[in-house]
Structures are given as C-alpha cells and as structure tokens.
C-alpha cells in the first residue's frame, strides 16, 4: 500500500518490464510526461510505443542486466534521453526533448532469480541547461560573443587530432585590425568596442557554421577553417579582407574606414601541434603587415 | 566398465572439487595432473578410461592437450570441464574430438551424467 503510493507519486519515471520487453508497470510520472496512460501500455510490448528503443545498444543493456543482475546507466551525455517527452515549462525553448538520465536494474523473484527489470527516468533538463550556460560562459568572449582564447586552445588541439586521424585539411587565419589604436585614440574606447563587434559580425556572416571565429587578444582574431586546404583558405581570407574594407563603419553619425590584415597557415606533415601552427599563422600575419596592411599573406607567398 | 579417470586441472581446488563430485564408492582409480603437458604424459603412462580436462592451464592449455591425446589415441575418451561454455568454445572442443563438456563448477549430477556418457562410449568401443 505504502510502496504503491510512492510508486505513483514519486517525481521520477518508473517502468517495470519483463524479459520479453512487455510493460508490467508504468507509473503516473511516465503517464503524465509520455501522454500514454498505464492502462494503454501495460501488457503491451514497449517497442510498439517506442520503436526507437528497439536497437542493439538498448537491447544489449537489457540482456546484460537480465544476465548479470547489475545496473545500466543511460547517461544524458551520450543519449540525451530514452523516452521522447516534451521538456517542462520554460525549458521547452532550449530543448526539443526532455533531457533524461536513466537507470536500468534487475528485479528478482523469491528464489533470487531475475525475472523482470526496471527503468527509472529522471528529468535532468535543468541541470543540463546550467551546464550548457557554464560551458558557454567559459568559452565565449563577452564583448563580441565569439569564442575566446580558452576555447581555441582545446578546440584547435582536437581539430588537429581529427585531421591526423582522418587525413583532412585544416587551415588557420590570424586576423589583426589595422591601426586599431588610432580608432580608440581618435573616437574613444566605446567606438573601439563597436568596431570589434561589427567586425566579428561581418566575419561571422562570411564563414561556414563549421568554422570557428575566436577573439585571440585585444584586436586580434583567429579563425579555424575546418577541412580547408591552403588555396581555399586564401580565398576565404581575401573575402574577409574585402568585406571589412568595402564598406565604412558608422558610429554615432561618424563614418570611417577600417581594414584588416590576415595571415594564413595550413596544417601539413611538418607542423603537427598547436604551437607550430599558431607560430606559422603569426609569421604570416607579420608578413601581411609588412606588405603594407589590408593584405593577405602566408609564410611562402 | 570404467575403471580409471585422469583429472587434468592446474587448480588443486578444482581437482579436489572434481573428486568430491565423483559418486560415493565409485571404485575408480583416480590420477591427477597439474597442467596440459603433465596431463598428456600421465595419459600416455596410465591410459585412463576417461580424462577430465580443464581448458585454461599454464604450460600447455586444454586445447593443445586434447589435440596431443587424440593424436596418440584417436579413441581416447576426453570430457572437457570449463566455465566458459560459449558456443565457439564448445564447437572447437567438439571438433578436436571431446566427447562432452561439463560446465564449471561441476556438481554430482553433471559428473554422474558425464560418467554415464563415458561408460556408454566405452561400451560401444569395446563391442566393436
């Protein structure tokens, strides 16, 4: 009596399945969030209602619980959810489906033999939302909204490893605003901030979703171009140079022109780590500056 | 009639358990060996009617020992005793000529059944 009340009122989804994956129990939480009542689903095969669960990974975990009597954990990180359900309240905008952390365990009969298994479903959407915000805060430059240097160091490392694993191309652009100090000195820091924001906007509009724009330092930016060989990287760099110099910036009715210089570096067999690739891009940028600014250069041309 | 058995297992406890599972007053002569190599040596020396053979052993494993024994005497009656009863293992020992497989840990019932199977096999050999 007490246990059945807990079963029905607990703020966790609880499901009992037999070895044939027939639903034996389905608590009120499950009914509420799945919009499938206990009467509807009890006695039926789980996969009739949730065909997406009928896959090797889920079945393997069921067999393992039934055989070894241990527990299986379906982490939100890997699965996001097992049962597609709508997220509650304000989180509906953030997630398409409720984020779940699920556990599966054995249920034994009086002889200690495993006869059924249970699944518990916990709504972790709120925690995931906080986690996302924290990660975001740690990776994003507050002024411009593009990635920060902290993010770049780990991401570039990952991209380099990926390229080596799959033999893909990778290029890096080092971008510096020409004579940025003059803008600050002439029009004030507010205007300088405005230019930084506008420039990142124009660049973001020109690059692909798979590329990463990073604010590397004060007026220095960096762009990771995934799966891009040197030739294409040069074309992108040239487009970025043009999109900045082609149209003047207007701040509080003052119009002025700004240009950027870009250094291009691509991954090859000789430079395999973050440092050497960055050094190459830096050298290229220095050369672009030497060539008279508002230019694109790499270390060889 | 079965009159002698050889138990090949590297674990002294496993051999002790096997002996405990033999029927009371069995009247069998029991020989023992602690690895595959010793097992083959004992087999050649004693020519037991039945050999219980563990699979995972140092020096020479059960698969090799079974091969050696069968090479010397294709009629040798060998019953494999193993905890790992996955299909591929069962197929492999059967292909090498094992009469039967007993799952570890053994019990009086599974050993009795094994002895009966061995007796039947022996009778067929003797009548032919």
């Amino acid at each position, binding site marked *: 009596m007490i246990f059945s009340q807990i079963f029905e009122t607990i703020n966790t989804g609880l499901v009992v399945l037999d070895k044939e994956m027939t639903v034996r129990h389905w608590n009120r939480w499950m009914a509420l969030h799945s919009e499938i009542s206990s009467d509807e689903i009890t006695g039926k095969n789980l996969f009739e209602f949730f065909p997406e669960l009928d896959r090797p*990974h889920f079945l393997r975990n069921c067999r393992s619980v039934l055989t070894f009597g241990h527990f299986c954990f379906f982490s939100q990180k890997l699965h996001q959810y097992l049962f597609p359900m709508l997220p509650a309240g304000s989180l509906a905008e953030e997630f398409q489906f409720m984020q779940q952390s699920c556990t599966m365990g054995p249920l034994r009969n009086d002889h200690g033999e495993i006869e059924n298994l249970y699944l518990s479903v916990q709504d972790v959407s709120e925690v995931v939302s906080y986690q996302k915000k924290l990660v975001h805060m740690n990776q994003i430059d507050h002024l411009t909204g593009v990635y920060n240097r902290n993010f770049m160091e780990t991401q570039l490392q990952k991209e380099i490893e990926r390229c080596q694993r799959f033999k893909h191309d990778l290029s890096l652009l080092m971008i510096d605003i020409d004579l940025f100090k003059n803008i600050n000195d002439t029009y004030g820091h507010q205007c300088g901030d405005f230019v930084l924001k506008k420039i990142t906007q124009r660049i973001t509009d020109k690059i692909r979703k798979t590329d990463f724009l990073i604010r590397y330092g004060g007026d220095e930016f960096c762009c990771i171009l995934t799966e891009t060989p040197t030739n294409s990287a040069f074309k992108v760099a040239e487009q970025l140079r043009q999109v900045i110099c082609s149209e003047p910036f207007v701040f509080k009715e003052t119009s002025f022109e700004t240009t950027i210089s870009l250094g291009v570096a691509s991954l090859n067999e000789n430079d395999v780590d973050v440092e050497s690739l960055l050094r190459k891009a830096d050298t290229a940028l220095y050369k672009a500056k030497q060539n008279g600014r508002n230019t694109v250069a790499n270390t060889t041309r | 009639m079965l009159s002698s058995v050889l138990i090949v297992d590297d674990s002294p*406890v*496993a051999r002790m358990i096997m002996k405990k599972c033999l029927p009371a007053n069995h009247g069998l002569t029991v020989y023992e060996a602690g690895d595959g190599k010793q097992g083959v040596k004992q087999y050649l020396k004693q020519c037991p009617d039945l050999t219980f053979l563990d699979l995972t052993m140092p020096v020479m494993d059960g698969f090799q020992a079974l091969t050696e024994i069968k090479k010397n005497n294709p009629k040798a009656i060998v019953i494999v005793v193993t905890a*790992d009863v996955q299909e591929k293992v069962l197929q492999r020992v059967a292909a090498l000529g094992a009469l039967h497989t007993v799952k*570890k840990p053994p019990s009086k019932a599974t050993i009795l059944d094994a002895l009966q199977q061995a007796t039947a096999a022996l009778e067929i050999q003797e009548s032919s």
Partner: protein
Amino acid sequence: MSDIVPELFTDEEKDILQEVMNIAFGQASADLAEVIDIFVILSVPEIHVLKGHQLPGYLCEELQSSGTVNIIEQGFLGKFSGQALLIFPTGAEKELLTLFNQDQELTTLDIDIDILEQETLVEVGNILIGACIGKIAELLSDVVTYDPPRLIAKDYCLEDCQQSPVPAESFAISIRTVFRFDQQNVEGYLFLITNQHSIDWLKKALSTFLESFE
C-alpha cells in the same frame, strides 16, 4: 598468488579464491559473448592481494610499458562490498568504441568524439565490472548492488601517482586479466578494493563454497 599480504589468507583459501575467480571469469566470458554479441575471452585471472598503500607502486610496476591509463571506478554493495577499479591503457577506448559500435548507431548521434569514447569506456566498464562481480557474487551466494560507474582518471600517468586512489588501510584484490574481443587484444586490469569486514565474509564464503560439494 603472491604473498604481499601473507597473513590474510591461508594457502587453501588462496587456492579456492583463485578457482572461484577462474570459474567466475570463465562464466563471465560465456555470458558476455551472448550479451554483447562479440566473441570474448577473459584470460585466466592472476590474483594478488595487497594493502591499499601498496597499490600505486604495484600498478606502476605492472603497467610500466603502457604509459598513461584510464581508470573507471564503480562501488558495489553486498555482503562483499567495495570499489572496483577497471584500468585500461590510453587508446583502448578507441578500440572499444569500434567494437561496440559496429552498427554505427552511436556515431550518427551529434556528439563530440571525445565524449563518445569516454562514455563508451564507462558503459563497457559497467558491463565488464558487472559481469565479473556478478559472477563472483553468484558463486558465493551473494547479491550485490552498484553505484554508477565513473571515469575517475583520464590519460593518467601512473608514474606521477604519489598518492593511492584508495585508503591505505584497505585491501586490494588485484585481478589481472586480458579481455580479448574477437581478434583484438584489449588488456585490462580489474582491482577489487575492499575492507577487513568483507575479507572476513569472503573467507567464510570460500569455505562454504568448498563445503557445498560434500
């Protein structure tokens, strides 16, 4: 079995423990093959018993050539209680992901490959630990429950390991086994970290196990 803690078990108890582990790992191989649909061989486990404070030095010596490792930890609770530590050399997670994702089910998900490998390691660890401990418990007539597994160390360099990951006064039953999946060898080490109370129970359970054949 070595004599690092000679007073803990008698020779007979050590022999029974070794045989129980042999049977548990053999049965676990067979059942694992069915559960994960992959041909598995768990090699004959090598058993050593040591004190918690000896663990870092022991690990360092045993895994010398392997460089860095990943350590998965999982608590288990029954009459026999403790923590299981499953240790794989760095790189094993890539092989495990290939093996356990032959249908490409997981790689179609939009997840970072690092997280995928990490989570696979934890999931596979959960199954392997559950299989081994479950079988040991079953043989000794115990029922255990488990905490969620955690990856407690990633790319961990054992040589830097000054401090033991377990209490100095605890006991570690080291079970060294090689998990062989299909054609690939993935070497793993399983350690059961336990306490005096559980050791006392284990000694009784071992003798009951042997008596059950009378």
